């Protein structure tokens, strides 16, 4: 048993709630495992992607099950966001077979929650946070909602509930352009969660959050993942805040992907090889991992990140 899983022993043992279990996979290639676990929620087989005539990565195999928390790591520009877009069906895969909830990408609709990378709203935008969250609930429907319709109250309750869940109640009624980057990010997480998706695709959700908020949001996502059996794929630059919630890590580099439990991928040799800079991974007594970069060369971070992101990891601990 790897130390990361040991830090939170309950989550893999948790059985699926039949009500929220994903529908069984239909059609060819549905292979239920004999261990009693459901079919994978996400599956990539021999997947490759090309943008602008250039192959970003190829031969990627990945399976994610309900209730699994998977981090996607890798240097800038390797195609992490593109992987998420492939899963959403926005970018077509060049090769391989991809299944999301047993269907082709883009066909699972509201069963997939999505948080794009680095979005910020125009300061002049006069739309409240609640409205943005609400759009996640029914923004894609045609026609106008009738003010006297029966599920209107239910929907309002759901919006309030999810805003409460992410702890954004204090500023949800302000125009979203006037919220800080971190506040906007929380509201957007609420927007991604509002339809109770079975798969959450989060592209750097911890970006622009401060350290306490990073671990709070990471814990929130971990809780939703493991309690409500949601498959989470999170692109991250910094593994530390999510490390002890993770079940698996996908590391994209050099045109391919390495996939495995955190202990196998998040170790000194693999990370040093992949980041091409010395990275040390330590294990603490209570079984958590700590990623330590060289103080003079901020390891897991990259040039594009400025300000509070720009300090080494030597003094930080996961969790």
């Amino acid at each position: 048993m790897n130390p990361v899983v040991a830090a939170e022993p309950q989550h893999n043992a948790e059985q699926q709630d039949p009500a929220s279990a994903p529908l069984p996979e239909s059609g060819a290639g549905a292979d239920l495992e004999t261990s009693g676990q459901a079919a994978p929620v996400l599956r990539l087989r021999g997947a490759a992607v090309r943008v602008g005539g250039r192959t970003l990565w190829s031969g990627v195999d990945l399976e994610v099950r309900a209730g699994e928390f998977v981090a996607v790591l890798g240097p800038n520009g390797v195609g992490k966001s593109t992987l998420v877009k492939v899963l959403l069906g926005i970018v077509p895969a060049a090769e391989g077979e991809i299944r999301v909830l047993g269907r082709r990408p883009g066909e699972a609709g509201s069963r997939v929650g999505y948080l794009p990378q680095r979005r910020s709203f125009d300061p002049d935008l006069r739309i409240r946070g609640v409205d943005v969250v609400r759009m996640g609930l029914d923004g894609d429907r045609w026609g106008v909602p009738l003010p006297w319709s029966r599920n209107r109250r239910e929907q309002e309750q759901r919006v309030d509930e999810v805003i409460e869940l992410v702890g954004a109640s204090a500023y949800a009624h302000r125009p979203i352009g006037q919220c800080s980057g971190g506040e906007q990010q929380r509201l957007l997480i609420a927007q991604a969660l509002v339809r109770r998706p079975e798969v959450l695709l989060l592209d750097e959700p911890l970006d622009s959050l401060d350290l306490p908020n990073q671990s709070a949001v990471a814990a929130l996502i971990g809780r939703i993942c493991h309690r409500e059996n949601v498959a989470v794929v999170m692109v991250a630059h910094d593994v530390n805040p999510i490390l002890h919630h993770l079940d698996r890590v996908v590391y994209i580099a050099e045109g391919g992907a390495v996939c495995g439990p955190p202990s196998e991928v998040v170790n000194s040799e693999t990370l040093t090889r992949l980041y091409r800079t010395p990275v040390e991974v330590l294990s603490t007594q209570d079984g958590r991992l700590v990623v330590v970069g060289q103080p003079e060369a901020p390891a897991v971070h990259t040039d594009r990140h400025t300000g509070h992101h720009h300090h080494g990891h030597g003094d930080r601990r996961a969790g």
Partner: protein
Amino acid sequence: MGTPVFSWNLLYDFQLMWSYPFMVNAFRAGAIVAVVAGAVGWFMVLRRQTFAGHTLSVVAFPGAALATLAGFSLSLGYFGFCVAAGLVLALMRRGREPGGSEESAATGVVQAFLLACGYLFMALYKGLLEGPQALLFGSFLGITSGQVATLAVAGLAVLLALTVLGRPLLFASVDPQVAAARGVPVRALSVTFLVLLGVATAEAAQITGALLVFALMVLPAATAQVLTARPGLSLLLTVVLGFAVTWAGLVAAFYWPYPLGFFVTSFAFGLFLLAHVARSTARALERRRDASGAALAGGAA
């Protein structure tokens, strides 16, 4: 008709104005245009496509000028040119986010070229009956019942389209990436919106003239968005404000010898300023209340 004098007895004044058929038509046309331009303008402001809107309104001028020159219906000139220009803009902005900065140069090119065309058409049409002034700054005299009917049909079509598309359009305007991931046809909506914008501009240009279209397309929406951040309320307020300034402008232009476009624009601008004053006052009051509340709490502690 003599010089009518405003009596401050609104009932009497309206009775007088309604006794002139051209005024009845002006009020009808004004109401239709205010509602349509307000609703479409609200989305335009939200999508930050005011430059595209401006281009389309400028295009109304060569459209009308060509119609006068070639002798076909003025409505056809307005609608034909504005919708076609909307499609051209949609074509040019393919693959770009709404409100992107790169598009403005291309949009500006279209605008300058078509304005020059309008000038040419005016020059070719030597007889300058109405003169370019009415086309540029609007006129409410001589609106026929046929024109009102055309405005009503086109306006209803736009409003119907907005009712059906409104929610996904709002989603796609505010949050295009997530909307696209949710299966909202963001690109198709963006094209459709430019066409709707073309129709709405063509309508407004017939009342306010090509240059003052923004009085109805931007000012009411901007005013409403200052006053509230609730989308539904803000849209409703936009339409009400647009309607109010248009009718007030018509009344003023009937009684005072100054142009309609000036009145409508000034009223709308006045409301915009008032809204800003109201918001600052509300904020200041709130801050003072917070401060005194804090002082009270401090005293109690």
